[in-house]
């Protein structure tokens, strides 16, 4: 490891232990203070790793709660990278860390067959044996990826342009949300460019211990983003985890690459839209029949990776400005899924335990649907509550666009 984070900013106040959802759910996990800064001192001395390191979900609640700015989750992820260099992670972790690559390999197979292949009971039993819990809500492949669909979208001829980074979840599993985002950005007066050269942000690779793969993705992406930055175009994403990866994690994990390409930040698309509303570029007045829609009650879940960005909750703010829509903030902490964490056999029950408070809040809210920016949070909410969960832009489109 070329870079190390100094653990001595930690004063052992235990605030992170209080706010760690995994430590709350299981005493098998030593907790962020111990696994992060405290154990880092042992690591620097070359002493053995604690066996509970793998329980860290990289949800970032330690980073959010730390009063001294100690990047606890990064300490944990770097330790995991070291560990995985010595002991290669298994096939299960490779599969969960490389969703985008798998989708590319399987591109020529029709989605129905892929889903039949992946989600049928026999395969689920095989995946279960591999370590992907058979109860977990593995999402289904979309018939066509978002990028494939984008080639057929006819956009209005707008002068201003914006680059949209869909993220793997939208691209592979949930292209409809991507199309809703394109609609919203068009409405804000921007023509949307979806570049082919951008790849997975690398967060699932880091979380599953594939540091080198994450590094090569980072280099690839930062190089591509630098071109758009230099062309003066804003780059936005609707996925909080991708945004956090580019804004905070990559410069911390790979400072040399970050330095080489300069700051290449991904902006939050919801904040971008909110700014457009405030500038008068984006109208929240409903078109045509949409103005006669019945009132809608929603419950909003703030993804941890959004809370970690220090930008507040612009998606919630957008929803709250919609006529005829009431949105309650669930404010019930982490949903438990943390990307691929909650799919793992030894973590599934922990993830459900973490999400229990949110599930109860959503079920008791009486809301017609749940809303969250993060794709896997939505999967987990649907799994835990049976209630439909959507991205805020999908709500915007449903309420405003009825042509």
């Amino acid at each position, binding site marked *: 490891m070329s870079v190390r984070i100094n653990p001595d900013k930690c*004063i052992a*106040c*235990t*605030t992170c*232990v*209080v*706010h760690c959802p995994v*430590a*709350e759910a299981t*005493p*098998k*996990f*030593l*907790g962020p203070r*111990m696994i992060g800064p405290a154990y880092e001192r042992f690591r620097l001395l070359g002493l053995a790793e604690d*066996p*509970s390191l793998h329980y860290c979900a990289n949800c970032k609640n330690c*980073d*959010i*709660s*730390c*009063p*001294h*700015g100690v990047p606890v989750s990064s300490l944990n992820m770097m330790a995991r990278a070291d560990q995985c260099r010595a002991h290669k992670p298994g096939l299960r972790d490779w599969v969960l860390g490389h969703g985008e690559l798998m989708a590319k390999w399987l591109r020529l197979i029709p989605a129905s067959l892929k889903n039949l292949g992946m989600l049928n009971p026999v395969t689920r039993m095989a995946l279960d044996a591999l370590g992907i819990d058979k109860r977990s809500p593995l999402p289904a492949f979309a018939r066509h990826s978002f990028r494939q669909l984008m080639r057929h979208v006819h956009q209005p001829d707008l002068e201003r342009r914006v680059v949209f980074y869909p993220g793997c979840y939208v691209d592979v599993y949930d292209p409809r949300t991507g199309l809703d985002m394109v609609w919203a950005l068009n409405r804000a007066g921007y023509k949307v460019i979806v570049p082919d050269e951008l790849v997975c942000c690398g967060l699932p690779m880091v979380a599953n211990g594939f540091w080198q793969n994450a590094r090569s993705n980072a280099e690839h992406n930062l190089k591509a983003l630098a071109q758009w930055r230099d062309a003066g175009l804003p780059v936005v994403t609707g996925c909080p985890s991708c945004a*956090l990866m580019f*804004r*905070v994690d990559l*410069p911390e994990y790979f400072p040399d690459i970050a330095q080489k390409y300069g*700051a290449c*930040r991904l902006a939050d698309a919801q*904040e971008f839209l*909110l*700014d457009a509303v*405030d500038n008068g570029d984006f109208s929240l007045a409903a078109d045509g029949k949409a103005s006669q829609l019945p009132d809608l009650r929603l419950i909003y879940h703030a993804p941890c990776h959004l*809370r*970690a*960005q*220090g*930008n*507040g*909750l*612009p998606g919630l*703010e957008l929803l709250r400005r919609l006529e005829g829509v009431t949105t309650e*903030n669930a*404010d019930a902490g982490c949903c438990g899924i943390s990307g691929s964490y909650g799919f793992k056999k030894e973590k599934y029950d922990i993830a459900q335990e973490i999400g229990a408070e949110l599930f109860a809040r959503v079920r008791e809210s009486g809301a017609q649907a749940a809303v969250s920016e993060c794709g896997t949070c939505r999967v987990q909410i649907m799994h835990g509550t049976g209630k439909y969960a959507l991205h805020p832009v999908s709500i915007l489109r449903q309420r405003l666009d009825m042509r």
Partner: protein
Amino acid sequence: MSRIVDVVVVGSGMAGLVAALVAARQGRSVRLLTSGMGSLAISGGSVDFLGYAEGRFAANPWQSLALLPEEHPYRLLGVENVRAAFDFFSQTMEEQHWPMHAATAEDGSPRNTQLPTIMGTLKPTYLLPSGLDAQAMATARRVLVLSVQGLRDCRPALVISQLRRYRSWADKEFAHSLLPSPFGETHRAVTALDLARLADKPQSRQWLLDALAAHAGSCDLVLLPPLCGSKANPEVWRAINAAAGCPVVEMLSIPPGVGGLRLRDALLRALNQHDFELVENTTVLRAETAGKTCTTLVADASGQERRHTAHAFVGATGGILGGGIWLEPGKATESAFGIDIAVPQDVAQWSEPEIFGRHLFSHLGVRVDRAMRPVDAAAAVRWNNVFFAGRSLGGYDFATEKSGHGVAVATGWQAGRMAAAAAAGGENQ
């Protein structure tokens, strides 16, 4: 972050939450910026007011206020304002179904309570959760001190041997016991918080009720580490007192702070009923000012600068450990607004040889007027719409006075109220 709000509060400890709530209650839109989660996650569940004045125990803290130096925040506010602030806090807790009360002396006047700690020492504190019966500590003859197997922080035998040194506890009959751990063998050392969280849920609360019931009838008072739930839920306390068959008193403990989480829970619940927005994980970098007015705070948000424009601002950023005050050799600065705090060049003068002495570092902070507006060396107000609260203020030493939460409540109330008024004035202009 383009929306202009009435009041921006910086800091989510006791002072920041109280200031935000006071302003929100007056109908102002409030945005709270926080870096970390504030001190309530690591503090106890009672509210200290003033335990010691001039180094002596303050039986009735209201009477001891006059002994404080003039620059002390309580003196700046005056007794009536401090009383109004405590009334506001008590009323809020009542509304959130977590009533708090002060113990009373024989003549009915409020008094401090000497609450045992897990080290067997006594600490004066003022507002107690209503489930805690302070009188029982005076009248109980037989005291049972309990801890839980695997809870390394609390040793009942130590608690007893230490408590016996105090006259008020010396004559009591003590017994002690370790409750079986509901977790069994664990990889991590169990904390009071782990146990308190079990007590939050009805299905996992039963182990504690059963364990207490096994000792019922053997004592008049049970001393426990703080494990009676991490939420402001009175039902847990009722069940626990009923199971023990006698009053249960939680001892004050070390972090993680179970009791403080209950206060945080109640305050956030109250705030979420208003036009309130919480922006987490952001650090204020600087203030933009025009003459006597602050217009905007610029904050770091994951490597980018974000502007927070408002009509009024409250700084409740904490002290040296909380990040509200930066120290360098020969220099102390308030971190959000960059206010210079006067300190001697020679750092040797910042502390005293006597550990419980009056250290400069423990009471240095922002100097304010009665409205909590920061003032310069000539006592002139710096900005008309900026107010400070909590440990970022100078003039008091919470550790030796035992006044931390109390000063936070009182100054948070004043700062929130003044910010609400300034915001209303700002809008009219």
